[in-house]
């Protein structure tokens, strides 16, 4: 469905995407993970054929996005990072006018609009204006709109950023259904739980490059340990680095944070026993499974990027 080799996007001196290779198979849910500025959105804009690659090879549905952009866009559904619904049209009109951009007849547009409103549970708001809708409703409407042309690929740029937990879960459930129908999903996110929930396969991007690739499970296996021990010390604030030094050799890796020390080990209980044997007495201990977040922070670092 999507094939990229050595894909580069430059804006003046700034290189947003620096030579990435990506392949997405039909029916797959594929994720781009990365901190802000990693190049996810620039990649998505190239895939959605609104931004031409600076260099490298890109094929969408077997076609060249520069030459066949219009034909490709006819078969894509795009849900952008910022909602760009028509605020002065009703919920239903947003879908019916959009259907016309794809050359659908008015009758067909209305039929699909009603069907999609049902799918995203907005039927009862069909006649209301977009402006008073909640963030979650707007997002669902944007997703419904991206499906009006029955696309082969749906591109979702940070689909649940800024939504409350209920809205996110409803959205995930709808996207999961979409995936079950065989639609190829490509999404960007910086939420690890979202990536674990939705993606069959994902790449982690940092500084315009792909730093890791695989299924959520395989990434955790490759880049983290099975378990993580989180230790807090009463006087930790200044001394966490010292405590971490005293733990060296236990497990695979020790990561001192300002508020706690993370101990990466395949057997959390065994690691904790060893910590106690070294005479350390943490005030609280949590042993948990490794998550994608551990992988992400390990790969992209803890420095804040804005």
């Amino acid at each position: 469905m999507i094939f990229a080799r050595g894909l580069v996007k430059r804006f003046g001196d700034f290189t947003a995407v620096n030579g990435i290779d990506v392949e997405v198979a039909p029916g797959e849910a594929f994720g781009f993970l990365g901190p802000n500025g990693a190049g996810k959105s620039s990649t998505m804009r190239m895939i959605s054929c609104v931004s031409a690659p600076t260099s490298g090879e890109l094929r969408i549905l077997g076609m060249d996005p520069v030459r066949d952009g219009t034909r490709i866009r006819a078969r894509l559904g795009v849900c952008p990072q910022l909602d760009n619904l028509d605020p002065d049209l009703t919920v239903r009109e947003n879908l019916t006018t959009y259907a016309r951009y794809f050359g659908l007849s008015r009758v067909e547009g209305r039929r699909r609009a009603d069907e999609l409103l049902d799918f995203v549970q907005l039927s009862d708001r069909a006649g209301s204006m977009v402006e008073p809708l909640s963030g979650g409703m707007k997002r669902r409407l944007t997703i419904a709109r991206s499906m009006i042309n029955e696309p082969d690929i749906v591109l979702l740029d940070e689909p649940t950023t800024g939504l409350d937990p209920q809205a996110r879960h409803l959205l995930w459930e709808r996207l999961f259904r979409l995936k079950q129908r065989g639609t190829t999903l490509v999404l960007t996110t910086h939420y690890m739980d979202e990536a674990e929930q939705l993606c069959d396969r994902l790449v982690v991007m940092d500084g315009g490059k792909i730093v890791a690739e695989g299924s959520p499970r395989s990434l955790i296996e490759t880049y983290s340990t099975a378990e993580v021990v989180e230790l807090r010390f009463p006087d930790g604030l200044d001394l966490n680095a010292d405590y971490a030094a005293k733990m060296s050799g236990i497990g695979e890796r020790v990561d001192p944070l300002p508020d706690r020390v993370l101990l990466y080990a395949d057997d959390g209980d065994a690691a904790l026993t060893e910590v106690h044997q070294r005479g350390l007495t943490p005030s609280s201990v949590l042993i948990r499974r490794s998550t994608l977040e551990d992988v992400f922070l390990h790969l992209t670092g803890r420095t804040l990027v804005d």
Partner: protein
Amino acid sequence: MTAGTVRPSIAVLERQLTLYRRLWRASVFSSFVLPVLFVISIGIGVGGYVGSVKGVDYLSWIVPGVVASTAFQMALGESTYPVLGDFKWSRAFHAMRATPVQPNHILTGHLLYLLFRVTTAVLAFLLVVLFFGALRSPWAVTVPLVCALLTVATAAPVSAFAASIDSDSHFTLLFRFVMIPASLFSGVFFPIEQLPGLIRPVAYVSPLWHAVELCRSATLGTAPPWPVAAHVGCLLVWAVAGTLLAARRFRRRLED
């Protein structure tokens, strides 16, 4: 235009009309009632003192000026905030860009919508002034065509401007240094021969002046100051250059 261009442009026009269906009541005043009030107050009120201009009663003399300047102001106004808004605030143009609709279809749809708006307003206005006896020549039927050309000659370059800026404060400059001088010095209320020679070139470059003179010669059945082809040519230059520039600006704004 090929068939592949027409359909997406019509889809954009339909979206504008769907929006307009909700707003038309508000626009009736500015696009129709106001010009009629203008004609009544200035044409009859001021006209009572002025008497006649070049042998024509003042009301009949300013009617073509008011109709052209209404078209001019509609085309200009509707290409400022609404266009910038669809790029910047609602980002509706970006939403269209993600579909088979291309930037030039968006521009075409916008211009078609303004042609509709201006033409309906002009026809309604002409119908009213017909009863005032202000249309003295059957050539008046060409007024909507002149106004249509003026609409493109104005809306295209202004849309190009709206697509190039990032802040709506630039529109203040446009209103202050383009719209107001053009409205005052384009022969709407008095012949431009009254202007000092230094200011007269303002009229010559203004698309409004050429449209005013063409409309006036049409409603009065007199010859315009320049050959008809020269006036039409000036309007065409604005329309074609403006459209080419706007197409480029739209494309640039919606890419990267």
